[in-house]
């Protein structure tokens, strides 16, 4: 949650600052933090991305009638039960399971918080007249699971001058769980930071965990977590809070899914994987406007912000792209094409699929989007998440290779006008024929040679399963560090343990340039050149051949400065020897490991 009353700066401003603080790749390169196998705590929790409904999108919206008693007032027992019933009736059969209560359940309509004698959040009697357990009971009675929400730290209003006792912790009061200087923490600085060097702090977490376990909750959204939530530095490092929660949940004996929010710092991804079941990779998807969301603020951010996280998703812990608000075009504030693209990215990224829509008012198209079994299977099946196989340009292709040898392939047109988008099979690693199935339209489109091109509307998408019927792609590799290449500007060779040949070319900034000389092909044409690169953030390079006109391509983030990923870039080559240049122009380009040039053109 990002409550506007707490938010100091808009997301975009902060992100810009973050980018500007970065310097050239090599300077900030950190050793490859090798991916650890995803933790699988507690039985089957988060074996697959969870599916369900969350209250926040409607709470946060200015859509007429949703919050008649003030901001966020949508959250009431009556509304939660109404949505529970609708979820059970319409979506449960398709795998939607969780009903998640978001922020405010312990606050009145003036947003004033209420705590029990032990400094724990307690239900607002107007919103939830029968308490939180009654709601969970109703949800369970429908065969569904119940989710609840807490912010990080000890809320300031709960401190009570340090006088409140901690439940089941003789001798501990609120004075014993925080730092003596009452330093604040979380994304809104709304709480005092817990001092886990003091045993009482963990007891406080235990007491909160026991409360929600006693009420019967199966899921906790833990919000304002740092580093992340637009905060960094020791004061906002909440790794210990998260670890304490994992331990506390285990101690209750009740499986409770622990989901972290928001914009978590990818530099701590190993912590998140170790202690939680999912993490929000980005800011709120909601627009805090007259609809639930809008394309520009901030659905479309996810195409750029997700790729760095992709490889960290897996059973036990998933990349959370936030609510999937595609169920009612008018309330969502999106076109049909935008809604399909939204659902497509969430599905292929293996994000949890929880809608924030009014489930009593789904339109026909929304029902189709939320209940397409083939698309849900992409998200829930035993397949890896997709990531971009082309640069993050206006038209882009994402793909995943599935265990059965097929590929999940998504085409996206993020431009404001219709455009053709092509998936070249060579970007997937094979050449020749392939059978293509259209998942959204439940239709076998037939067999295609080398590529499939479709016209996509503005902000549109297609989602296919591609079954190769051709042969493996043969390519010729060229190392960036080869002495036959030409480096210009500050460009230099640097060691890189994850890179082929152990080296890459970095310092491609402000005019830095790398030219591969003598790239030989037999036939003229457009080649999909696979570029292996390292880039801790999304960066652009101008790519050209033989000194001709350059095309700027944005390379998606690889998540850190020690991981190599690949995308394929179309380059027009002539028969015989060619040069291929990566030019940082007037900004910062990714570090280049190598290129692989197919034997045949597109």
């Amino acid at each position, binding site marked *: 949650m990002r409550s506007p009353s707490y938010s100091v700066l808009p997301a975009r401003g902060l992100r810009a600052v973050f980018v500007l603080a970065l310097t050239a790749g090599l300077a900030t390169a950190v050793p490859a933090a090798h991916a650890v196998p995803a933790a699988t705590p507690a039985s089957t929790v988060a074996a697959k991305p969870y599916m369900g409904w969350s209250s926040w999108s409607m709470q946060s919206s200015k859509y007429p009638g949703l919050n008649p008693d003030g901001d966020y007032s949508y959250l009431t027992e009556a509304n939660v039960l109404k949505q529970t019933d609708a979820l059970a009736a319409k979506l449960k059969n398709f795998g939607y399971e969780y009903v998640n209560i978001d922020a405010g359940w312990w606050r009145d309509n003036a947003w004033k918080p209420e705590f029990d004698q032990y400094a724990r959040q307690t239900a607002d009697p107007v919103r939830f007249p029968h308490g939180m357990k009654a709601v969970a009971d109703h949800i369970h009675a429908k065969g569904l699971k119940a989710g609840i929400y807490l912010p990080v730290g000890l809320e300031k209003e709960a401190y009570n001058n340090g006088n409140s006792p901690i439940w089941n912790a003789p001798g501990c009061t609120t004075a014993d769980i925080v730092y003596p200087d009452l330093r604040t923490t979380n994304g809104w600085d709304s709480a005092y930071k817990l001092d886990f060097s003091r045993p009482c702090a963990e007891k406080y977490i235990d007491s909160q965990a026991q409360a929600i376990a006693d009420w019967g909750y199966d899921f906790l959204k833990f919000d304002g977590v740092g580093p992340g939530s637009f905060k960094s530095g020791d004061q906002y490092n909440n790794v210990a809070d998260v670890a304490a929660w994992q331990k506390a949940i285990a101690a209750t004996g009740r499986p409770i899914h622990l989901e972290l929010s928001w914009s978590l710092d990818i530099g701590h991804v190993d912590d998140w994987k170790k202690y939680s079941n999912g993490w929000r990779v980005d800011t709120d998807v909601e627009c805090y406007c007259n609809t639930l969301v809008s394309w520009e603020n901030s659905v479309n951010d996810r195409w750029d912000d997700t790729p760095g996280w992709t490889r960290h998703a897996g059973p036990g812990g998933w990349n959370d792209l936030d609510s999937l608000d595609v169920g009612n075009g008018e309330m969502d504030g999106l076109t049909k094409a935008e809604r399909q693209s939204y659902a497509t990215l969430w599905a292929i990224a293996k994000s949890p699929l929880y809608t924030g829509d009014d489930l009593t008012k789904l339109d026909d198209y929304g029902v189709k989007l939320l209940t397409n079994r083939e698309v849900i299977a992409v998200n829930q099946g035993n397949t890896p998440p997709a990531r971009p196989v082309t640069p993050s340009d206006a038209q882009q292709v994402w793909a995943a290779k599935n265990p059965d040898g097929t590929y999940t392939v998504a085409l996206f047109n993020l431009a404001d*006008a219709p*455009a053709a988008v092509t998936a070249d099979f060579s970007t997937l690693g094979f050449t020749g024929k392939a059978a293509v199935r259209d998942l959204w339209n439940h*239709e076998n489109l037939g067999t295609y040679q080398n590529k499939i*091109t479709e*016209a996509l509307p503005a902000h*549109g*998408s297609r989602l296919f399963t591609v079954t190769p019927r051709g042969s493996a792609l043969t390519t010729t590799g060229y190392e960036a560090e080869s002495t036959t290449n030409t480096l210009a500007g500050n460009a230099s060779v640097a060691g890189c343990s994850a890179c082929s040949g152990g080296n890459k070319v970095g310092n491609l900034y402000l005019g830095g340039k790398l030219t591969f000389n003598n790239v030989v092909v037999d036939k003229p044409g457009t080649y999909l050149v696979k570029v292996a690169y390292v880039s801790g953030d999304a960066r652009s390079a101008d790519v050209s051949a033989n000194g*001709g*006109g350059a095309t700027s391509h944005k390379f998606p983030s690889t998540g850190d400065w020690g991981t190599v990923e690949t995308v394929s870039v179309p380059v027009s080559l002539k028969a015989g020897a060619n040069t291929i240049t990566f030019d940082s122009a007037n900004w910062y380009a990714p570090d280049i490991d190598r290129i692989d040039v197919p034997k045949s053109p597109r």
Partner: protein
Amino acid sequence: MEHVPSRRGFLALAAATGALASLPAFTATAAPQRPDSLAESGTSRNTLWWQAPADEHSMIEQGLPVGNGRLGALASNDSGRELLLVTDATMWTGGLNDTLDADGQFPYGRTDFGSFTLLARLTVDLPDHDLSAVSGYRRTLDLDRGVVTTSYVRSGVTYRRELFASRPDDVIVLHLTQSGGGRYFGTLTLEGTHGEDSSRAESFAGSFPNGLRYGAAVAAYGSGGSVEVTGSQVAFSGCRELTVVVSGGTNYAPDAAADYRDPSLDPEALARTKVRAAARHSADTLLHTHVADHRDLFGRFGLSLGTSTPEQRALDTWERIQARARDGAPDPELEAAYLQFGRYLMVSGSRRSLPLGLQGLWLDGNDPDWMGDYHTDINIQMNYWMADRAGLSSCFDALTDYCLAQLPSWTDLTRRLFNDSRNRYRNSSGKNAGWTVAISTNPYGGGGWWWHPAGNAWLCNTLFEHYEFTGSRSHLERIYPLLKGACEFWEARLLTTTLPGTSQDMLIADSDWSPEQGPLDAKGITYAQELVWALFGNYCVASAELKKDSGYSGTIAALRQKLYLPRVSPTTGWLEEWMSPDNLGETTHRHLSPLVGLFPGDRIRPDGSTPKDIVDGATALLTARGMESFGWANAWRSLCWARLKNADNAYQLIVNNLRPSTGGSNGTAPNLFDIYQVEQGRGIFQIDANFGTPAAMSEMLLYSRPGHLELLPALPDAWAASGSVTGAAARGGFVVDLRWQDGRPTEACIRSGGGRTTTVAFGGTSRKVSLSPGQSVTLKDFAR
């Protein structure tokens, strides 16, 4: 003094000159001629194609144009929702606009001067054919047939849509078919764009405060299923195929005496009559009738600039435009298709109605920049430079008709208002005669923005060139009053001055502005001197040819002798733009006004007949103007370089105009419309470059003036390997078919369209050709 010409006076003028008022633009027409059979198949080189439809908010860059010369549309071609933005060339607000502003110039607003605006919107919604649900989408524009085709597959059924604007049936036709057992379900809506009552599904009517009435109508018929009116829409259900026919227009009449209206015409009723008449025929019959008519005109000119690679041919048109700029390799077939696209726009936009303005017949809204009007200081002239050069002489008539229909009003305005004491451009002598125009003109006899004294000469010279190309005596008779009136204007306006250091009396133009830069009150600007010099010469030829006014012709010839002609500045080395050695304007200004004697005039020739210092000064000025302008300014530069036989520069400027326009930048849009960036991030359509660039391409292949014809004067390396052009008119009254190989003509067929003798030159050699009208001769064996 009688200010407004009476109808009697106007008719007397028409009778005296042989100029006939044209029929109203939107009028009942005779039954179309139907072809017996149809020779099908256009060549693929003249078929443009795209893999995505237009965005409804980017129609001017992405919509595909159709038009029958009067009635036009931009089409989105979206599978789920076809949108047509329908225009009629006469759909103009505004009026005579004869109350000058305080500065003695014309008001220039959308109500007083007026603006070209949309006629109607037609949408066809097919809810099950959402673009996200169809595969294999493609749309094509077949320039040879004049047909836009959209096709895609939905659930195994191939759906196909053909769109064309038929001149014989005077309707736009949208024909939806399928193969594979599909059915069409959806609605269609015809509505106005000016707040008209749209409660009736089949037609609407409206009128502007200026009294112009307009209306449009639609008819739809299917096979199988049902088509019925439901409220303000037409709903169709279960149709195996569907034909939608649209027509519409206004009661505009090109007749000053009738105040440019036909009061008896009910446009809505006429539109309903037209769509009903067309709907009696099958869509195939309508198509074949249209294709035969279109092909008859479009097929009169052929062009090959060489062969493109298979890789280039595999790209769609927009990819190809991008690849041309990115890879830098010539794409001769694309470049030839760009010229043919210009011809397509002219066939579609300039037949039997008003001429092509700043955007031709195509709009994406009701407030086009500069009103979509007629700009007389380059733009309308450039629109028609291509017509004769590229086999579309008959399309030129719209310009002639327009000028003749405006002449009574232009004459009246000049007489009443030009010497207004507030007008800084008035004749300081106090004398006043003949006619001239403002920089902008509308179809109601009115001017907009500032007076443009030399505009009359440039219009006349353009009209006269059409006579030179065609040898048409009847055309010369029609334009004679325009020429004579312009001469009378200049006879009254020229001032006598004695050049410093000489005793020689010279005639110079009174205070004026060299378009569109520098001092506002410069006397003897090169632009005016050159245009008037050419005008006077043309008038004398016309007088002699028509055996009229020999005495007055002598007067004009004498004036011409005394016209000051520009010198080369000792300071800059450039041909002077003002009678000053100093550069009083922007070095790289878009206009080439002082080079109007190089092109379109040809007083300045690089063949030794013009003093070398003048040719050098013109070349130096052209060089200084630079190679990086935009659209029409690049096209004009290219034409001038072609005249100077600099093939590399002429070609580079064409390549510059072919750069893809992205984010509103200067260049070529996905639909090949030329885009001019008016401000960062906002580009607008300016059709002149779509005609000026083809004119330059033609001029590189063939230069002509009466009595002289030069083959391949500026052939660039990119086109040199092999090529051909057929049907290119040459001044002097000839039509040329030409083939070349390795940069050298291999065969040139010269046909007389009325011309009798000319020299035909290539390189350093020339031959004399004498023919009778209708005869032809084929020349071979050209030496290097």
